[in-house]
């Protein structure tokens, strides 16, 4: 019962949370750049405007692929917040990302295709860290189930600092922030126009934006999972850590320039191997 309520809360409130976080992101970035910045609710105005435009697409299949992407991502978050198996959640998320890739590549347009290929490379870069994070949870908690992990006595991060670092590192890739925003970027038109989302107009872009918010809420939940333990006060701690991480991402985004994909691949894999790897080694030896 509790699981269903949590999932429903996620399905209903995640867009709000995601949108607010997005608005906060733009506001803070603007202030960092010495500007005033858009109002906090700007992402919702954007979504509203996109919704009211004429429905366009380059290929007829794009719409249903984007709808599938949205629904699969909602499923991922719903499974996570209902307390089920975290590894399965990430597997479902990888399927959702595949739908996004299809929606971009079915058009055959040059910018879209290059953006989609880069998106695949991004997926290859972050997947080991994500899987290793799940392995880390299994190692120290003995289970993949989120419902059991949040009831542990000690916060998982005490045992899993390396995994946490690796996960936060690849969060930069997942949130599409500089220096790893090679496939599509939130900012004004870059080297690939809009990369992956070039051929997404109106409704399709709105679906993409909405799905990003669901994804952000899910990923922040995973970051919080590292902190939460059976003590209810830890929830406040988790939210604080999530905000700190979020701020760090915005800071890195504003301070760095985009790198090429091979550098991104190398750096993410090396960081994963070193931080998650060493942590894994230590945990296994101490078993």
């Amino acid at each position: 019962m509790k699981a269903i309520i949590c999932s429903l809360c996620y399905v209903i409130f995640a867009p709000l949370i995601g949108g607010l976080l997005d608005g906060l992101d733009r506001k803070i970035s603007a202030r960092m750049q010495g500007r005033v910045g858009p109002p906090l609710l700007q992402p919702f105005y954007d979504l509203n405007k996109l919704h009211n435009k004429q429905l366009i697409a380059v290929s007829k299949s794009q719409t249903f692929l984007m709808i599938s992407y949205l629904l699969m991502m909602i499923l991922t978050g719903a499974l996570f917040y209902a307390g089920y198996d975290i590894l399965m959640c990430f597997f479902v998320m990888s399927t959702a990302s595949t739908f996004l890739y299809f929606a971009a590549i079915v058009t055959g347009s040059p910018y879209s295709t290059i953006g989609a290929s880069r998106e695949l490379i991004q997926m290859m870069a972050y997947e080991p860290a994500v899987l290793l994070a799940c392995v880390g949870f299994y190692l120290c908690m003995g289970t993949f189930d989120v419902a059991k992990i949040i009831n542990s006595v000690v916060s998982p991060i005490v045992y899993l600092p390396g995994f946490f670092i690796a996960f936060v590192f690849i969060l930069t890739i997942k949130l599409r922030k500089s220096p790893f925003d090679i496939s599509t970027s939130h900012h004004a038109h870059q080297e690939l126009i809009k990369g992956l989302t070039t051929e997404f107009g109106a409704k399709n872009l709105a679906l993409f934006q909405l799905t990003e918010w669901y994804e952000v809420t899910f990923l922040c939940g995973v970051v919080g999972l590292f902190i939460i333990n059976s003590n209810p006060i830890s929830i406040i701690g988790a939210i604080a850590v999530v905000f700190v991480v979020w701020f760090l991402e915005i800071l890195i985004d504003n301070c760095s320039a985009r790198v090429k994909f091979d550098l991104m691949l190398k750096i993410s894999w090396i960081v994963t191997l070193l931080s998650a790897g060493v942590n894994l080694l230590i945990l296994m030896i101490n078993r």
Partner: protein
Amino acid sequence: MTLGFFLICFPIIMSLIIFCIRVNKIRNFIAYLSTIIIMAAVGVFTFFWVKNGSQIMQLSIGEITEAVDKLILIAELILMVVVTILCFKYKKYWISLLSIVPTLLIAYFELFLKNEADTDIRLYIDHLSILMCLIVGVIGCLIVIYAVGYMHGYHHHHIDIEDRRYYFFMILFMFLGCMFGFVLSENLLWIDFFWEMTSVCSFLLIGYTKTEEAINNSFRALWMNLLGGCALAVAIVYFGIKAQTVSFHSLIIMGQRISDHSDMWVLMPIALIAFAAFTKAAQFPFSTWLIGAMVAPTPSSALLHSATMVKAGIYILFRLSPAMAGTRVGLMVSFIGGFTFFAASVIAIAQSDGKKVLAFSTISNLGLMVACAGVGRAETIWAGVFLMIFHAISKSLLFQDVGATENSIHSRDVEDMHGLLYRLPRLAIIMFIGIAGMFLAPFGMLISKWSALKASVDESNILLVFFICFGSATTSFYWTKWMGKIISHEHTDEEKVRDITKKNELISLIVHAILMITLCAFFPLLSKLYVDSLLMEMFGTYEDVLPISILYILVAIIIFVFAIPFFAYIASKKMKTNIKLSYMNGINVGNNNEFVNSFGDPKQVWMSNYYFHKKIGQRKLMMPIQVFTTAWIVVLLSMIISSAI
């Protein structure tokens, strides 16, 4: 049971008959008839076994046991002679040694050193054997049906190659019989014979086209497999002398019961058999034969080199896995398997030839199965069995599809499959289903990875955890980019490609696709009903590998993955979408295929995938990989052998 014996002998007899028939139409008809009989026989065999309570059956063949043993020995000697003659004919003298030495060793052992009081059990039937029989019977026969149509088109197209279809089909049927014999045998000497037979069948099939490249590749396959055969022979003789029995299951049971140092000698034959399995399953450093085998016509690639023969190595490793758990042999096997899984998937990214991608992906998946066997826990074998089933179906489907596509568009390069969905819709959809079955959630591969990861952590096998995590990332990369290629918009306005796929090819493909989807949908059921009992037989204990909650989530996810795109498609059909040109900075000519160049003329758009072949291509990585894996095997084998003596 006589049916088991029938399964072994019937295809061999049919192969000899087929060899004699040179009229295509009659031979095709007999081929169809035989495949239907074999499939029916497998079905009946399974049915009777299930009806009798799905028990383990150890059968002897009565008074003719000694005669059959002698017959097999003579057949092995004939095989040795054939191989030697061929080696001399093509001036590869040293390879004949690899055949002569083990065969004579086995002959000497059988005639002089064998224990006469040894058991006369020859056939062993349990869940794993029945599963292998089903795979070989159903998929093998479907491939033969496919081959009839394919070879017709093949010879129509390749006029320079001598039409020896009677020979081709003879070897296919011979091979089917040998595989049945292999998976049903209990006696190690029989296993050795059928092993050598499959090696020679593979060798003959690769060299079918008789081009220089084919001949070189076939001899490479031969010496690698024969090297495995040597190891197998030494293992059998050693075990036979020390334990005074050549029963396969005695070996396994003794391996499980190692309690102190004096029992350590059992590990040596197990290690040598595992080594032989490496050569058969094309693990690094023995992978080049499988890559080279792609020059053979597609049915042989599908049958031998993806769906069935390489599974023989996996089957042996699965049988040995309870004995390998926690030992040095297990360490050797799991490392080679995991490393192969990762390294082969990296090289697969750099391949653009469709068959080469499939070959490397086969090696990679086999690596994962080998690693599962090496870890030796119930969970990894569960994962490995499912991997095996899914891989057999989807890989044979993909090979057949690539072959049929090659016949139609005259190229098997993935780049030429751009927009295949609009040019050859049926083949493209089936290809899509095949690739999806290989790696997408929630299909078999994914849940196997889940289980393998969990078990590796439980076994504290750190390296395997890394290999699986990194390997899974690289695997999804090369599969997804192929899928994207198929559905991408077609850029050339070529006239419609004629789909010349024959009916029998299509039948095989569609049956495969249906099997694939059914298995994906129903595999939780399969796990509960069949695989759990398989594990019970192997390990003797019954732990629920897949907890109930996971099963329910899995079923829910399967339903969602099928339902969501379907309903989304229906919903989007109703929306009035205004179609726009794709964005090319405003210089789109108007057909999404061309843009206006600086002279004002239209220029073709050409999009390609990433391959990175300069960084991670076969040429760059193969040598270091082979050196590294050879060193690992040499070191570990020496450790095991020295501790045994």
